[in-house]
């Protein structure tokens, strides 16, 4: 893959990107070997009390939330009829598709017998499990995303007929995608409903599924803004006039939407505390951390987005998007790691091993390599000249 890239770019193989990526991939391969020869115990700090670590907290929970740009963007464009966001759909779908693919790949490291991952769907269905819902929806949605992404690949390959058939499915796929996303985004939060005695009351709420779903919306929106910033830096030459012209609409429109959703989410969080009457926990150290989360990572970006949109400040929007994305990571880490097992003594709590972080970094690198490979070759940031106005 990397050598092809070098040829395509007509440059030396040893670009800084290739060197860094190469080293990380090499490390990833070594860690993979360790994982599948020594078991989880060899490279993780997981224990019987802490069965889930950052591969679940980051790779699964954050990965899925940050890939929510796929369904939010395609819904805005195709269902709500906001055609001015059309040029943002393909990058968002590509991000979502690769994101979900990476989530599934990450699960291969985490679960004990990865080749049995299809079991809950094809062998024996545990329908009482929230994880079953997650598994089924992620499986179906990954398929949907593959089909939604495929026109770009088919245009690249010149398979006109198939491409035109797939494009006809756009609306159905978009609706199906929203349904599946609603279900699994929310059920990732619902996973923790079964353990009220283990999750700190400030984060445990019967609204967990709703919190996870609503926060995935602004996570997706912010991720699209954040990513377009990066893409403009690295793939500017690939972007056509439509993309460049519409980008302003996307930035402002998405910032406005994220601002509203963040505001709603903030109100819901307050409502959640009131419902369970958890106010007295706010004075504890966990309470302070909770306040940091909802004031610093929800209320603040909500306010900053509003100011930035009003003052037409693109820079501020971009920084706020990054902050919001960070806030999602903070929230998912809080629910699944920091508030989880909060009553256990610190000696029995979990902190990731560097090799666990190494695998996560490796997977993110694989994501970037794949994204780069596709964005450099396929019509992601521009319309294929032969298919202009055929959508």
């Amino acid at each position: 893959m990397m050598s092809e890239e070098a040829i395509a770019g007509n440059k030396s193989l040893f670009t800084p990107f290739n060197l860094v990526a190469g080293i990380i991939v090499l490390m990833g391969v070594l860690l993979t070997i360790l994982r599948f020869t020594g078991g989880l115990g060899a490279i993780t700090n997981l224990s019987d009390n802490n069965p889930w670590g950052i591969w679940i907290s980051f790779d699964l929970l954050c990965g899925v939330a940050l890939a929510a740009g796929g369904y939010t963007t395609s819904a805005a464009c195709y269902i709500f009829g906001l055609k001015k966001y059309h040029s943002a759909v393909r990058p968002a779908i590509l991000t979502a598709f690769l994101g979900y693919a990476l989530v599934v790949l990450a699960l291969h490291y985490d679960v004990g017998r990865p080749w049995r991952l299809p079991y809950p769907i094809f062998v024996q269905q545990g329908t009482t499990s929230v994880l079953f819902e997650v598994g089924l929806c992620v499986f179906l949605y990954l398929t949907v995303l593959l089909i939604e992404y495929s026109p770009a690949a088919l245009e690249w390959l010149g398979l006109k007929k198939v491409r035109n058939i797939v494009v006809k499915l756009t609306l159905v796929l978009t609706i199906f995608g929203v349904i599946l996303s609603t279900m699994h985004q929310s059920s990732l939060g619902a996973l923790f409903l079964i353990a009220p005695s283990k999750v700190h009351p400030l984060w445990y709420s019967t609204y967990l599924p709703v919190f996870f779903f609503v926060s995935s919306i602004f996570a997706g929106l912010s991720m699209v803004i954040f990513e377009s910033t990066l893409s403009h830096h690295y793939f500017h030459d690939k972007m056509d006039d439509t993309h460049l012209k519409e980008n302003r609409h996307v930035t402002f429109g998405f910032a406005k939407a994220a601002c509203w959703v963040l505001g709603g989410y903030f109100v819901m969080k307050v409502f959640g505390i009131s419902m369970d009457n958890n106010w007295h926990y706010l004075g504890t150290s966990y309470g302070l951390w909770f306040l940091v989360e909802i004031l610093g990572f929800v209320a603040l970006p909500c306010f900053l987005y509003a100011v930035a949109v009003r003052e037409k400040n693109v820079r501020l929007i971009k920084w706020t998007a990054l902050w919001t994305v960070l806030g999602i990571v903070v929230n998912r880490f809080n629910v699944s790691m920091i508030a989880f097992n909060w009553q256990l003594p610190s000696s029995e709590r979990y902190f990731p091993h560097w090799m666990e972080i190494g695998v996560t970094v490796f997977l993110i690198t694989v994501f970037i390599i794949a994204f780069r490979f596709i964005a450099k070759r396929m019509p992601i940031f521009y319309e294929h000249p032969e298919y202009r106005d055929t959508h």
Partner: protein
Amino acid sequence: MSITRRRFLGWMGAAGMGLTVGRPANAAGNKNFSGYPESIGVLHDMTRCIGCRKCEAACNEINKLPAPEQPFDDLSVLDNKRRTDATTYTVVNRYDGIQGADGPIYRKVQCNHCQEPACASACFVRAFNKTEKGAVTYDASVCVGCRYCMIACPFYVPAYEYNEPLEPRIMKCTLCYPRLMDGKLPGCVEICPKEALTFGKRDDLITIARERIRSFPEQYVQHIYGEHEMGGTNWLYVSGVPFSALGMREDLGVTPAPKLTSGALASVPVIAGLWPVLLTGIYAVSKRKDKIAAQERRQAVKAALTQASADAESKLSKALEQAELKHKRLLEVEVKKAVEEATANNEEENS
């Protein structure tokens, strides 16, 4: 592309149906499951336990678990708090210096065999089974190793073979289910020298426990742990000191685990039913709005054009009229001039 429309629709159907059928814990249903009536259990009387670890040894032998680092008669192991792990289905812990107790108190830890187990509810391949006998069993042949059961268990019981690279299993007490089927007692119950463990039908055990508490009220706390915790467990406990002093959570509540997630799962048919209708509706509305807007635009353009052409026409005719008038006047003037000239000429000639 290997995905045909038929297959795709099939998946859509499967997604909807798969999530709505075969779910025993029904949030909206009017059914109440209060455990299998004839199921058996064990009553652990912690006032009788002497911490000899014989139950641990018996369990280890019967379940063919690996030999421990320190032998079972080495009681210094009790200096540390332990939990069940991949090589131990049961452990005994010692609690020193508890208020109201003369000496140390011992507690045996193992799977409590919940009446409605969290692990079984959480498992997405149904690897756990609550048998009618009362034991919660585990089937490693379908287990994916996701460890959600360990997240779900409120008692921190299931353990995992973390050092097993390819075929790790969940490890936990089976209540000696194979022995029960042979009519034998669980290993730990059989070996206990102090009758700290009483085997029997769960209902009978509750009666026995009540009887003990009633007969010796000064010896026992007025609570049978496990009677209602998390919907009730098949292992029951009585104690002379508060359970929380023995590391047992008293804030677990009485809601069985499946009920905790059934509400969220019940939203699946709502989403699957409502979203397509709503989203198609929104699509239709936005499309119609676009259509009407386009229509209005067309009409406005047309109207503007007609107006413009009408204006132009009237302007033209007016101009023509004016031109005609001007022409006429000019003609008149010319005629007049000619007439005048002619008259003048005539007069000149005549004069």
